[in-house]
């Protein structure tokens, strides 16, 4: 499979701050790659380095075979970018907005018009092409953003926290479009790099890179990442939930306790699950609580994220 993005030893400093501190990326065509991490971990800076909006302090980036430093125009012509704060002209219609983005990217009208219609149909906005952007719902605006990023038929689509503030139905639609885009052109297909703080989004990616302090501290498929905590997440139910929570917090082999409504998720030290499953019922009983259910459950990406964020803290 073709490698669409090759970044080697990327660094970007802002004064004394190492916003990106030695990042390597290798992304193949047809891949959806999720960049996750805390606020300030370096996700957005990495994205901006990849679109060529920022120059790296050190390191190389190749996009679709073009060196981003030496062949910046060629490299950029293969990229579609949807930023966190995508701007559109509210007084222009959907079609006029797309035309604007197409023309600044150098497409002639014989190219952009048929292509725009095809893309508007793909994102489901073809019936609204003459509606002003200012009159669109949040979800439609987001689709227009995606359509504008796709008008140049990019091989690489960069999405920087694209679904902040939209409802789950709209997010689901958006993701269906992104996955379709990638899976419909397998082989010579499109790649997507998406940054997100949401683990339900990260779990839809083929591979996920966890960023922390400018570095990708781990990179793998969602299922392999989850497998790192197999057997180490326990679910507890009972009453009162606050007693369960306090007891779990006190146990020395418990690393993390999270209350989720009517249940607790407890992450335990490696190799200690059996021991804890034996002693927790007694501990809870003597504290005056009732345990109704205790079982090991499949871990989630959120569990993994939190475990990783803590482990590298020292």
């Amino acid at each position, binding site marked *: 499979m073709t490698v669409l993005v090759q970044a080697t030893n990327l660094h970007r400093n802002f004064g004394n701050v190492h916003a990106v501190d030695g990042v390597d990326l290798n992304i193949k065509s047809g891949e959806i790659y999720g960049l996750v991490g805390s606020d300030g971990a370096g996700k957005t800076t990495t994205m901006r380095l990849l679109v060529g909006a920022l120059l790296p302090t050190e390191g190389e980036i190749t996009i679709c075979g073009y060196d981003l430093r030496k062949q910046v125009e060629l490299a950029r012509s293969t990229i579609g970018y949807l930023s966190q704060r995508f701007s559109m002209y509210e007084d222009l219609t959907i079609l006029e907005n797309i035309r604007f983005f197409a023309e600044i990217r150098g497409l002639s009208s014989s190219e952009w018009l048929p292509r725009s219609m095809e893309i508007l149909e793909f994102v489901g906005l073809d019936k609204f092409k003459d509606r002003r952007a200012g009159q669109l719902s949040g979800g439609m605006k987001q689709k227009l953003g995606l359509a504008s990023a796709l008008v140049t038929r990019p091989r690489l689509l960069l999405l920087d926290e694209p679904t902040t503030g939209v409802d789950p139905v709209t997010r689901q639609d958006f993701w269906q479009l992104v996955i379709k885009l990638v899976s419909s052109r397998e082989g010579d297909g499109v790649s997507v790099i998406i940054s997100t703080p949401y683990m339900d989004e990260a779990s839809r990616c083929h591979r996920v890179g966890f960023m922390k302090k400018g570095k990708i501290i781990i990179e793998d498929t969602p299922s392999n990442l989850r497998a790192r905590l197999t057997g180490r997440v326990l679910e507890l139910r009972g009453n009162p939930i606050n007693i369960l929570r306090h007891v779990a917090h006190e146990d020395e082999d418990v690393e993390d306790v*999270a209350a*989720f*409504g009517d249940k607790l998720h407890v992450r335990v030290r490696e190799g200690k699950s059996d021991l804890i499953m034996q002693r927790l019922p007694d501990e809870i009983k003597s504290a005056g609580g009732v345990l109704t259910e205790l079982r090991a459950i499949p871990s989630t990406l959120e569990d993994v994220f939190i475990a990783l964020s803590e482990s590298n803290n020292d």
Partner: protein
Amino acid sequence: MTEPVISVENLTRRFGDFVAVDHINFEVQAGEIVGYLGPNGSGKTTTIRMLLGLLKPSDGKATVLGYDVFKQSEEIRARVGYMSQKFAIYDDLTTLENLTFYGGVYGINDKARIQHTLELVGLKGHENTLTRDMSTGWRQRLSLGIALVHEPKLLFLDEPTSGVDPTARRAFWDLIYELAEGGVTILVTTHYMDEAEYCERVAVMRDGKLLAMDTPTNLKKSIITGDVWEVYAHPLERGLEILSAMDGVDRVGLAGDHLRVISQRVEKDAMQSLLSEKGISVEKIEKGEPTLEDVFLSLAR
């Protein structure tokens, strides 16, 4: 049983011919954490605005903390806290200055109370930090502090952890659980299922109606009555088309590198053989767990 903190009976709000909130009924007890979900335009915000006493209901009854939303909206507003994503924190003021300012708005001038609030939200030691220099997670703690400075018994949170990572979200919710343990009732509106999972009960609205209200566990059981299957097949999009058209399949979605199928009666083997028959290579089909997102999507469509 003590009196509920929120009690809503046939609450209705019309805007002209449009019924934004349509005869909803529910109760919330002291110390409960309740999530309030729904697509844009479902009537969520209108409901909250009525409960806050900001909008008069057209019909029905509602009491908040024992006060009537029709007649005693000022009593309600003095006793509830409200935290929103869009809440204005003054960027060029410090943490302490922001809290002192908003405390003053509520008539709170007691320095000890302000200090206590700082401690409560874990901002002690950051009194003199300019808020523009703080991360999103820290700003959210400050917004929470501002909502808590007058010691409300009921707290409304509007997408409280939007845009923050799971660690900051977890820390925020630890605080919320402590507040609830101390008897504060919490009502959260959110678009994020990551956040809704933290609530003890979740309500889902659509078209002005309250469709369901229950614990996340019960909602998953009662709304997603079928099985969830994770189908790893190649090519994915053809697989999607075939399974969508398959008899007995309720819903199929693309989930990154696999398909997510919800069905009452289709078995693994039937999907396997249909896909193979149509020339799709099937890597594996695994049983999945229903999520709150599944619940939301099946209710909201």
